[in-house]
C-alpha cells in the first residue's frame, strides 16, 4: 500500500477551495476523491479531517452548501465557492506561490547563497 501522508496544517482549506474552483459545486466525497487523486494518492482524507474543514470554510463564508442530487442520483450535500471564497483563494494561492518560491530557492542546488 502507498505510504500516506497527513495533510499539512492549513493547506487543506486551500486544496478544498482550489478543487471547488476547478470542478464547480461538488459534494464532500467528490472533494475528498479529487484531493486524493491530485496528490497521487499520497493524501488520504477521513471524515474527521475533511468535514470539520468544510464546516470551518462554510462558517467563515468562503463556501456555501446545499443539498442536491449526485450524478448517480444519490442525495448529497454540495459545496460551492462564494465570492468571498474566490477572493480568498486568489489571495492564498498567491501567498502560497510566494512562500514555496522562497522556500524553493533554499533548496536549488546551483544557486549561490552566499
Amino acid at each position: 500500500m502507498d505510504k500516506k501522508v497527513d495533510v499539512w496544517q492549513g493547506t487543506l482549506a486551500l486544496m478544498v477551495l482550489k478543487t471547488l474552483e476547478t470542478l464547480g459545486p461538488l459534494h464532500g466525497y467528490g472533494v475528498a476523491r479529487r484531493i486524493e487523486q491530485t496528490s497521487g494518492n499520497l493524501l488520504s482524507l477521513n471524515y474527521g479531517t475533511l468535514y470539520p474543514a468544510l464546516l470551518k470554510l462554510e462558517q467563515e463564508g468562503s463556501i456555501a452548501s446545499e443539498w442536491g442530487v449526485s450524478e448517480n442520483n444519490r442525495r448529497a450535500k454540495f459545496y460551492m465557492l462564494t465570492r468571498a471564497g474566490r477572493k480568498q483563494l486568489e489571495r492564498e494561492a498567491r501567498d502560497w506561490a510566494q512562500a514555496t518560491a522562497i522556500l524553493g530557492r533554499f533548496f536549488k542546488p546551483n544557486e549561490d547563497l552566499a
Partner: protein
Amino acid sequence: MRTLRGWASRFVGLFKQRYRYKDMAEEFESHLQMQIADNLRSGMTPEQAKREAVLKAGGLAGATEAYHDRSTIPFLEHVVSELRFTVRQLVKRPGYSLTAVFVLPVGMTASAAIFAFVDAALIQPIPYREPARLVELAETSDPLAIANLSYQDFNDWKRSQTVLEFVDAFSGAGFLMSTRSGAQPVIGGRVSAGFFRTLGVSPVLGRTFTRNEDIPGSPRVVLLSYSLWQDKFGGSKNILGQRVLLSGNAYSVIGVLPPTFHFAPLGSADLWTTINPKDSSCEQRRSCHDLFAVARLKGGVSPQRALSNLSAIAKRLEQQYPDSNRGRGVSVIPLSEAIVGKIRPVLLVLMSGAALLLLIAYVNVAGLILARSEGRRREIAVRGALGASMPRLTMQFATEAFVIVAASSVAALVLAHWGTQALKTLIPADMLPEMPFVLNVALNTRVIAFELALAAMAVVVFTATALFHFSFSDMGKGLAEGSRGSAGKGWRRVGARLVVVELATAMVLLVGASLFGKSLYQLLHVELGFRPDHLATTEVGAPDNNYGKDEQSIALGRDILTKVEAIPGVQSAALTTERPASFNGNTDWIRFVGKPYDGKHIEVNERDVSGKYFQTIGAKLLRGRYFTDDEDKSKPEVVIINNTLARKYFPGEDPIGHQIGDTKLSPKSIKTIIGVVDDIREGELDSDIWPAEYHPFNQDPSDYFFVLARTSQEPQAVLPDLRRAIQRLHGDIGVRDEATMEALINNSETASLHRSSAMLVGAFAAAALLLGIVGLYGVIAYSVSQRTREIGVRMALGAEHRSVYRLILREAGTLAVLGIAIGAVAAIAAAMFARKVLFGVSSWDPQSLIAVAVLLGFASLVASFVPARRAASVNPIEALRAE
C-alpha cells in the same frame, strides 16, 4: 473579519444542535454510500466494498466529535448545557424557584432604589467647577449655628483673609416683575459680582456680572434663569440688552444661565442681580445680617484652616465693633455639606434599612437553597459517585445561583426604575429646588454596577452556602438507605439559625418603622400654640415706590384685610411678617429697661402682626391684652412677648408694663410689654421654641407680608378668592404661594423627610415581616415533613394531638423567642444610630418594642400553626408505612 464571522456562526451553532446532527449523519451516510458504489465499480465484493469504505472513513466517533467541536464553542456549550440543566431543574420546582425569584428582588430593589438617591445626593459631585474647594461661609451667634452674614463683615472678611481664592456674597430676594398681566412675584438672588466665577458657571447666552457691577451707582443688570427665559421671554435670542422692570426699577438683561444650573441654598431663584448696598438699608449697617457667602478655597487649604483664618478676623471685628459684633463667630462648611447635610442622615438610615431587608432576602434564599440541596443529597451523592468532580459540582451550584440571581436582578432593575420614580414623587414639589440632586436620581451606570455587585455577591454566597453544606456531609452517607432522617436534622439546625437571623432582622426593621411612624406622629402633633386647621395663607409683596412709605404700607394692609374679610367663609384675617411654623430667625437684639445688661446679645424672634393676628391663628393670650387695630406710630409703642421670653427674663414677675429696647436702649426703640402670649411655634416643627416678641404691624409696617385668614369652610376652597381679592385691589400687587396652613405644615421639609422615612422603613419592615414569617414557615414545615415518622411513632405509642401541637409549636416558639430577643437588643442599638432623625421618641421605646414583639410573636404562631396542624393530623399507620 472572516474569523469573526466564524465565531459568530459557531455561537449560533450552540443553539442548533439537533438539526446539525441529523444533517451531519446524512452527509456521512451519503459519503459512505458513494464510496461503496465506487468500490463496487472497481471490482470489490459487496462485503469488501463496505469494509474498505468504513475503514477509509476513519473513526466515526472521532469525526463526529471533531465536527461537533468545530460547529460550536465547546466551553460555552458546556456552560449552556449546565444552564439548560439548571433551568430544567428550576422549572421542575416552581414553588422553590418562584419564591427565590420573588424574595431576592424585594431586597435588591430596595437597595438599588435607595442607592440611586445616595448616589445622586452623596456620591455625584455638586455641579460646579472643582466642587471640593467650594465652601459656604456664614456667621454664628448664640442661638444659631449658622446665622446670616452682614455686608460690612463680609467686606472685612474679604479684604483681610488669606485662605480664599474667591469669596462672594449671596442672598435671596423677592422681586415683583412687571408683566403685561400685572405684577408677578419672582424669587431672585442678589449676589456680589464674582459669584458665578467663584462657582465656575458660565452662561448659555451673554455674560455674567463683571467687576464693579456691584458697587453703588453701577447700572442695574440682571441674569435670567433658563426656565424664566423660556417661560416668560419665549427663549428669544434678542433678550440681551432688553429692559425688565423689577419692583419698579429697570434692569437690563445681560445673560441667561444654563438649564442645568441651580444653587440649592437659594432654592429656585428665577433671576439674579447684584448686591447693591444702596438698595438695602440693611447692608449699610454692620448689625444687620442678610447674607451668606460662598468661597473657593485656595489650593491645599482645608476648611478648618479657612475657619481659623476667618475666626481671627471675626475676633478682631468683635473688638473693633463690640456693639454689633459681640458673639459673632464664623461658620465654614463645604458647599456640598450645606446642600445635602440635612438629608444625609436620613439617606444613611434608609440605606441601612434597605441593607437589612437585603440581608433577610439573602438569608431567606440561602435557606431555600439549603433545604433544596438537602432534598438533593442523594442525587448529588450519585453524581459524585459517578465521577462528578468538586469543580463540576461547584459549577452546578454556581450555575443554579446564577440563574436565580440573574432572573432576580432583571426583575429588581425594572422594579428599581419604577421605585426611584415613585420615590421622587414623595418629595413635595416646592422642596425640589432645595434638593436639586433629586433631578439626577436615575439608574445610571454606578447604580447598575452597585446592583451587579450585589448580584455577584449573592451568587458567591449562595454557591458557598451549598458547597459549605456538602463539604460537611459525607457524600457516601447520601447513598445509604434511610439516611434522610439524620441529614434532615443537620439541616434543621442550620435552617433554624437562619430563621433566627431573619426574625431578628425583621424585628429591627419593624421597631425602626414603629419609631419613625411615632416620630412623624409626634412631629405632626407637636404643640404649635395655634390652630392650623381652617387657616388659609398667602404671601403678598408690593413695590416700594408705591407702597414703601409707612402710611402707604398701613393703608395697603388695611385694604387687604377689609377685602379678605369680605370673602364669604372668612371669619377673620390678619397680617404677619413671617408665617408661624416656618423658621426661627428674622431676629432682633433686645435689652430690658431696668434690668442689668452684660452686653451679650439677647436674640429673639421678631414678628410684626396686625391687630387680630393672635385671635385669627388661635393663639392663647396668657396675660394682658391683644393689639388693637388703631395702634400705630401715634400711640405708645407696645409689644407682646411669648411665654418663653417671659419665663426666661421675668422669672416670678409679671412682665406686663416692663419695657424693651434695643441694645443701647435708644429712646426711639423703647416699647412697653402689654401682653404675654402662649408659645407659638415659629420655627420648623422639630426646632426649639425661641423667645419671641410681636409688634403691631401698624407701628412697624412693610409692603411685604403674609395674609392669614380663618375660614368657616374648607380653607382650600378660599385660596383662589384670596388671591383674586388682593390682586383686584391694584395690578401692581404681587401674590404668591397661597396655601392652607395645614398643607404648609404637612409638606414642610421636616414633615416630608420624616414621612418619607416612615413610609420607606415601614415598607421595608412589612417586607421583612413577610420574608421572616415565610422563612419560619419554611423551616417548621420542613421539620414536620422530616419528622413525619417520628410523629407517627409517637402517636402510635399514644401521644395526643395536643402534645403533637405542643411539640411543633415549641420548636417554632423557641426560634421566634430567640429571634425576637436578639432583634430587640439589635433594634435598640440601631435606634441609637438613627437617633438624629427621630423626633419626640427615645431610641429605647418600650411601647414599640413590646408592640413589635407581640406582632412578630403572633405572626410566628400563625406561621407555625399550619404545619403543626398537619403534624397533628398525621395518620400513624400511613406515617409508619411511608418510610
